[in-house]
């Protein structure tokens, strides 16, 4: 009886939310317009553009010139007239042709710069190790498509010319030319089934598209039913109703996931339709291209739909959790940005080639769906893994709902005072001086830093290696500094710049040592689980460190993060979190954020733990200098190990044992815990009270 009453209420709430949502333009736009209008437009657009480009290329004739004043007729068979004839030849099967312009050698360069010609060839006689030779150089502008194409075509022609000359020289020597020119025939033949090929292509893109579209589909309804209700002032009305939080949340949750699933299915259908259309177009173009039996995709698609539903439930619950913290649409957007980044980043896993999809990964949210979809499309059905993915997604969704119900019990969240929490977008003149950043600002700064790290950091690191790392660090400190300057924050409080007591320094060093030991053990434990990941991390490090000196590495790998990362994570972000959240929540969230920032599954746990410790130290002592020291020590040990492995092994043999005995592990854990405990005990902030009296 009681459950049926509950069900009636949930149904009533669901009905109200659905009606409310379907009258919201934003939700409708996200749900309908994106799959039904935007996708087709993008597809059509790219098709049209593709054919336009192809068309323009076909109609073109390329102007080129030959400068062979310095060439030597006859040397290795050079024949200026034959070359010109070949270049200007239009009768062969090439779709484009070249037009030879008669330009004196001196003005070729200027003609190219003025785009009067698309490319030119310089032929010069040069003395090489093999004797005197005519050397061909193609001059072109890589920035111009036509010029590049012309250069490619010249290259093709010159290949033929080369073959022609070789043939001629060989025949002069009286040798059978064909066998010498092509002693070996090479050709490629792909034995994947066509369905697998199409599937693997789809499998790369589809997970990302699916996950993004579900996220977008869930996002607006999630905001509308949580933050939106607060913004419109109807939340209190809702709370006067005789329904429990559980019924309320479940009703809302089902409404949000209905929209998310509907939008996901619409997206899927739209994408399928588009690919079929695309396929049909390609088919007419190139008859032998792909013969795909669409019926073979049906079971795969059914499983994809099932997973999509499970994932939509999960993502709806998580998004609602995040947006519940916001008081308005604008704020919710800011909170959701990092969530979107994480989700999209995780869904990129499918692009990683040959990723092994194991049982453990099947339990990692988002990653599992991404990998599952891409595996299913190459027809790798593993039902136990499919089950794990489905069940874990349901479990995570349920956990998120439980959390959400608890959040709705929090009066602070429900009745929290209105106030401008995003100061970064407020005019600077309107801001009051002092204080620490708001949590919204901190989340925004963090998201900006993460974006810079992903897009700018990865590029400069690949380009400038160690110096790139330094630049990344400067970006990481730059964003919070800029933000605190703009919002006129008190730097001392924002970055916890309080001098430590001498005894705290000892405490910091001790606790860092203890933590380091524990983390070493943890990472060797994790190492056996994520071997590939560890290898990847080490390879990147080796690559970046190539050619760098010890001092340089120490400064950039140990000192720079000790300053810059501390400023962002233990300074700006933690101060904001501590102001708004309970201490435990602030410490754990800041720690986790620090873990996520390292963008690696193994490092998430180890650096996350370190982050938690650092935050705790700042929380107890209010001094960022301590954690900067700890961070420096932590990274410095790693640099020492990289540069002087033998010495370090002699000094600390226990850190290097491949397979430590149980006794050894226990001893290390004991020492670690002891050091950590003693260190934290020394960080006791109490005696200050006396000074005040």
């Amino acid at each position, binding site marked *: 009886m009681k459950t049926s009453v509950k069900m*009636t*209420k949930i149904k009533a709430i669901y009905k109200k939310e659905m009606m*409310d949502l379907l009258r919201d333009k934003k939700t409708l736009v996200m749900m309908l317009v994106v799959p039904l209008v935007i996708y087709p437009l993008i597809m059509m657009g790219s098709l049209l553009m593709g054919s336009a480009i192809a068309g323009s290329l076909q109609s073109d004739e390329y102007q080129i010139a030959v400068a062979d004043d310095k060439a030597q007729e006859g040397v290795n068979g050079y024949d200026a007239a034959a070359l010109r004839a070949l270049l200007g030849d239009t009768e062969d099967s090439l779709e484009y042709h070249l037009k030879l312009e008669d330009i004196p050698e001196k003005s070729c360069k200027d003609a190219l710069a003025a785009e009067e010609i698309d490319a030119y060839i310089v032929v010069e006689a040069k003395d090489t190790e093999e004797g005197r030779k005519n050397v061909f150089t193609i001059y072109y502008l890589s920035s111009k498509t036509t010029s590049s194409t012309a250069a490619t075509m010249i290259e093709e022609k010159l290949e033929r010319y080369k073959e022609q000359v070789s043939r001629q020289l060989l025949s002069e020597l009286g040798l059978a030319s064909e066998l010498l020119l092509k002693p070996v025939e090479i050709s490629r033949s792909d034995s994947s089934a066509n369905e697998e090929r199409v599937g693997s292509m789809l499998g790369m893109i589809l997970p990302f598209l699916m996950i993004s579209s579900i996220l977008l589909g869930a996002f607006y309804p999630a905001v509308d039913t949580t933050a939106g209700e607060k913004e419109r002032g109807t939340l209190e*009305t809702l*709370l006067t*109703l*005789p329904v429990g939080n559980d019924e309320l949340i479940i009703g809302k949750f089902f409404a949000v996931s209905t929209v998310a699933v509907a939008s996901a299915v619409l997206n899927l259908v739209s994408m399928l339709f588009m690919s079929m259309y695309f396929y049909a177009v390609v088919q007419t173009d190139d008859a032998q291209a792909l013969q795909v039996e669409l019926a073979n995709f049906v079971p795969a698609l059914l499983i994809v739909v099932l997973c999509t539903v499970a994932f939509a439930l999960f993502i709806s619950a998580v998004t609602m959790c995040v947006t519940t913290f916001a008081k308005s649409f604008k704020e919710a957007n800011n909170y959701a940005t990092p969530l979107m980044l994480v989700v999209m980043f995780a869904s990129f896993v499918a692009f990683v080639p040959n990723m092994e999809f194991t049982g453990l990964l099947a339990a990692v949210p988002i990653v599992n769906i991404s990998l599952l979809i891409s595996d299913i499309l190459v027809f790798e059905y593993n039902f136990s893994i499919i089950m794990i993915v489905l069940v874990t997604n349901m479990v995570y969704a349920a956990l998120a709902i439980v959390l959400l119900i608890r959040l709705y019990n929090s009066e602070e969240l429900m*009745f929290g005072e209105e106030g401008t929490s995003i100061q970064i977008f407020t005019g600077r003149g309107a801001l009051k001086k002092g204080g620490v950043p708001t949590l919204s600002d901190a989340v925004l700064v963090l998201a900006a830093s993460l974006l810079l790290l992903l897009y700018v950091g990865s590029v400069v690191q690949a380009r400038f290696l160690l110096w790139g790392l330094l630049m990344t660090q400067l970006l990481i400190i730059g964003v919070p500094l800029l933000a605190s300057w703009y919002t006129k924050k008190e730097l001392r409080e924002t970055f916890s710049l309080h001098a430590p007591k001498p005894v705290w320094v000892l405490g910091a060093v001790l606790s860092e040592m203890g933590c380091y030991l524990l983390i070493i053990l943890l990472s060797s434990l994790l190492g056996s689980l994520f071997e590939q990941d560890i290898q990847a991390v080490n390879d990147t490090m080796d690559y970046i460190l190539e050619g760098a000196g010890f001092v340089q590495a120490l400064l950039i790998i140990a000192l720079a993060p000790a300053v810059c990362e501390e400023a962002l994570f233990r300074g700006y972000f933690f101060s904001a979190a501590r*102001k708004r959240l309970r201490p435990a929540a602030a410490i754990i969230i800041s720690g986790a954020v620090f873990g996520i920032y390292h963008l690696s599954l193994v490092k998430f746990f180890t650096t996350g733990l370190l982050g938690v410790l650092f935050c705790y130290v700042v929380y107890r002592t209010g001094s960022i200098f301590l954690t900067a020291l700890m961070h420096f020590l932590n990274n410095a040990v790693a640099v020492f190990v990289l540069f002087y492995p033998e010495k370090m092994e002699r000094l600390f043999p226990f850190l290097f044992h491949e397979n430590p005995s149980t006794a050894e592990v226990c001893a290390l854990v004991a020492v670690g815990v002891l050091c950590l405990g003693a260190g934290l005990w020394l960080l006791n902030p109490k005696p200050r009270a006396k000074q005040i009296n």
Partner: protein
Amino acid sequence: MIKAENLVKTFTRTEKKNKRTEFNAVDGISIEAADGEILGVLGPNGAGKTTLLRMLGKLMSPTEGKVLITDETGRELTKEIEIKRHIGYLSGNTKLYKRFSAREMLSLLGEIYGMTPQEAEGRIEEIVRILDLGAFVDNRIERLSTGQSQRVSIARCLLHSPQVYIFDEPTLGLDIISSRAIIDFMKQEKEQGKTVLYSTHYMEEAEFLCDRIVMIYQGQVIAKGTPEELRAQTHTTNLRDTFLKLIENEAQGGLLA
């Protein structure tokens, strides 16, 4: 009947240097309103009126103390959901669902209150008659005027025929005609034996309407009684002066202590 026993609500406030200090927004308030009575809750801004009314309406749970409510038969209600079913709560923060028409919203809410669609429909017809909503009941709420939507808000409170009404500044920002409609409504409900708890900043309104008044300042009751009693106590001729005098006394007393 609704009764509050020694209610305390503690909030934490974050001040400079991240120090969290606790303060009592409501600091040990006991009040009681009988059936057929309108009890006015008066006090300056920040006195704790809204927090008190939220606790009485079970929107917030008290840090200490408890709330007792009896239904029309005198039975004491204990479960939160049961209590909410017998309360009609209206404040400046209980806005309406703008994307619906009044009729749609009322019938959706009716379902949440556990009515069948037929029951809800019948009740809505009744309310439309009582509150004279006929002209705009099918318009989307976002297109209604302030006065019209306030009447729809009252319809929302009336929908489930509660025993107790809690109205937090219901006439704020309304013109005389709209206020008049609300005041008349409260009087009618009182005459039918309902309990009305009501806070306002309009002293004339309170003087005219309330059977009894509690005066709240800094989370505590500083005076209570009928309007006449309060006036006599402070030797004033109208409630506005009574109010000012009481607050003044309290502020000075606070300084001396």
